[in-house]
């Protein structure tokens, strides 16, 4: 498996697991009517994500990491372009929550849009390494 495909898998799964746990917590708190909070849980989530991604990359990628070659740049650009469309749709969805929820939950919807687009980008990189481009 290509080094950057492996990195994309690491990013995909860590993003899915960490943000999945974060939004499970947010969902439970919102359903129970408890204050959800933003700064504390989000900072913890981002710190856990960064530590996990750096740790796993160091542990699993033993080869030296050279510069991107032209195919990897193309895969990265294509995945970023597709993820941008996902972000646009998800951000629109987040904007609509202003009619139904308070500002903290709307902020959570924006964070969810960012997480989904990030997952789309990593997923796009993984697919790009596996199919003709």
């Amino acid at each position: 498996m290509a080094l950057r495909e492996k990195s994309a898998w690491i990013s995909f799964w860590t993003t899915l697991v960490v943000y999945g746990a974060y939004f499970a917590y947010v969902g439970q708190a919102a359903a129970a009517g408890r204050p959800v909070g933003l700064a504390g849980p989000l900072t913890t989530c981002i710190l856990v994500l960064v530590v996990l991604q750096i740790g796993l990359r160091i542990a699993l990628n033993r080869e030296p990491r050279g510069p991107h070659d032209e195919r990897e740049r193309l895969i990265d650009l294509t995945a970023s372009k597709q993820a941008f469309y996902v972000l646009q749709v998800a951000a629109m969805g987040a904007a609509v929550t202003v009619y139904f929820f308070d500002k903290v939950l709307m902020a959570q919807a924006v964070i969810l849009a960012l997480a989904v687009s990030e997952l789309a980008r990593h997923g796009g990189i993984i697919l790009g390494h596996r199919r003709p481009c």
Partner: protein
Amino acid sequence: MPTPPPIKNDIRRLRFEHGEMTQADLALRIGMTRQTVAAIEQGKYSPSLEAAFRIAQVFGVGLDRVFQWEG
């Protein structure tokens, strides 16, 4: 899924004729990853003109000996 480009190549044969050069060796000499060389060789990726010339230069042949248009 995107259709593979209509370009055939003889990289595998050329590598064999050049002392069974590995994909990794070729990749190192043209500044790419082994996976990209494998994708080019399998017809899953069309390299840039610059990369195509670099590959031809490594084997000391013209571009048309390495890549052939099939479209």
